[in-house]
């Protein structure tokens, strides 16, 4: 993003955020498989697949925009 300042791209921080949140939500989803929360359509297990999606996107962003990688 920055030629003048060589700042770590904001996309890397986005990746970190998504990756960490993805892990937290995914694990939380796995833990509640046997004890689903009292929400509508809990049987869809949204935290599992939504967490997995965040992990994949976060990992891709972290890899693509990691500090030191030439763009």
């Amino acid at each position, binding site marked *: 993003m*920055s030629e003048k300042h060589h*700042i770590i791209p904001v996309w890397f921080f986005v990746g970190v955020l998504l990756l960490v949140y993805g892990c937290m*939500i995914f*694990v939380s989803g796995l833990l509640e498989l046997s004890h*689903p929360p009292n929400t*509508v359509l809990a049987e869809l297990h*949204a935290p599992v697949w939504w967490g997995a999606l965040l992990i994949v996107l976060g990992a891709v962003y972290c890899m693509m925009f990691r500090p030191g990688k030439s763009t």
Partner: protein
Amino acid sequence: MNLLFATYVAPRLVRLSGVDLAIIAFYFALVLAIGFYLKRFATTGEDFFLAGREMTAWVAGLAFVSANLGSLELLGWAGSAYQYGILAAHWYWVGAIPAMIFLGLVMMPFYYISKTHSVPGYLKLRYGSEASGLSAFTFAVMTILMSGVNMYAMAVVMKVVLGCDINFSIWVSSLTVGVYVAAGGLFSAIFNEVLQFFLIWFGALLIPIIGLIETGGWGGMVARIHENFPGQDFTHMWAPMRSFADNPMGIHWTGIVFGLGAVQAMGYWTTDFLVVQRVLSAKDIRSAKMAPVIGSFFKMAVPLIVILPGLLARAVLPMHLFPASDLQAGQHSFNEVLPLMLARYCGPGLLGLGITALVAGFMAGMAGNVSAFATVWTYDIYRPYLHKTAPDAHYVSMGRWCTLIGLFISIGTAYLVMNFASIMDYVQALFGFFIAPLFGTVLLGMLSKRVTRAAGFWGLLAGTLASITMFTLMKVDHRWVGVFALSPLAQGLAQDMYQALWSCLTCVVVTVLVTLVTKPRPDQELVGLVYSLTPLAREEHVSVLHKPLFWGILALGIFVVLQIIFW
């Protein structure tokens, strides 16, 4: 959006688990870490106030649209969608898309070529210090008051949703924002806005996805709404606006097209420095033109996470929601629709993500306000009127200090609003007083070299006074609503549209009349500021896919198709 009336609802809406709290805590830690990391890069005035003018089109575009995607807007418009149906989507489509494209393709080159730091800065170059001073002063005051209103609204939402203490929410959020904006300036504000953009999408998108699964798709949702609210139309955008009486907003299509689309939206998206500042941070003119165009595609998609949850709530919620001012014990207001839907579908983890998205939205809104305030105060008030010749480092230091001072004024405003509830409505209304006439002044200045210095000032002042007069008369005596808003049935939003239209027309008429009797500036002083005197760079050697014009036309095409689909 009257969020503060929601305090009458006693029980908290959701209860957070450990993982939810960890998600919120990680967000605070990350934004503070980013702020400290960026501090080393914000050393010059251009770095601190304009993020070094080195943002790519995507970063500037996401920050541009994100600056308008605060939580107050999300909660308020989701509530409006419940109240008025899909009519509320007009504020995301006709009330945004044409204006964003117009900013990118027509107005941005002038802002960018003139190398101004702000919208009042452009007025100073084009008209001189009178119009600029009026605009800078009103913007600075309103921005900081709005920041306080945002702060208080956030604290109320946290109290209603989570049961948090209001003082705790105000101080923790404002100190966090103060630290990271004072450290990294616009760099920090923009980074946080991009993070917020992703958070809001990933935090809110599950609501329409699971909601549509529950209702069996769009058709199922519409059928349930008709079943729950027979005889009412909540799912058509233009058909119910043939007359004022056919829709719950009490508005005619002329109010939407001319008041919202042609004046209010144009005024907000092209002259409100809070959003324009994000685009001014772009690294070159093509990026500056592309940023609003990129933003327009995302803006068009926002109804998916704001309007659709409001409509789904009509279909699936077992209880009815009510206006915030008429709440009784145990009832919920329109403005609580998004948290209610979040609690309906999201368990531990996802709930924390949704709440973090709301917190991030509030904090990004505050950061946007204080960073814009710091820029206008330093460059358009402090430097021209108080300390003309100082080294660049002095102005950076002033920017850091007035970020903190601005936040403390905002905190004061938040406590003022807490004690005098009606102030919130007036502060929000005040902001609208200046935007519509400012659009007239800026646009005439860009398009015509004949418009004079005096005309710019008197036109802006007359338009602003007209706006204040209409607002006051309509508040004092309801009969004036029938005069200015063309129908006594017009609700608040409809009144705003016509007020914007008439105040902008007043500005234009006065500007033209004063121009006719005053002497224009010499052409050589207006080069780079006025259309006919500015050589605009042609993009002959750029492929079609890299041309802002191509993407602008595509965005407008999709916009038209959406209007037809939901007609």
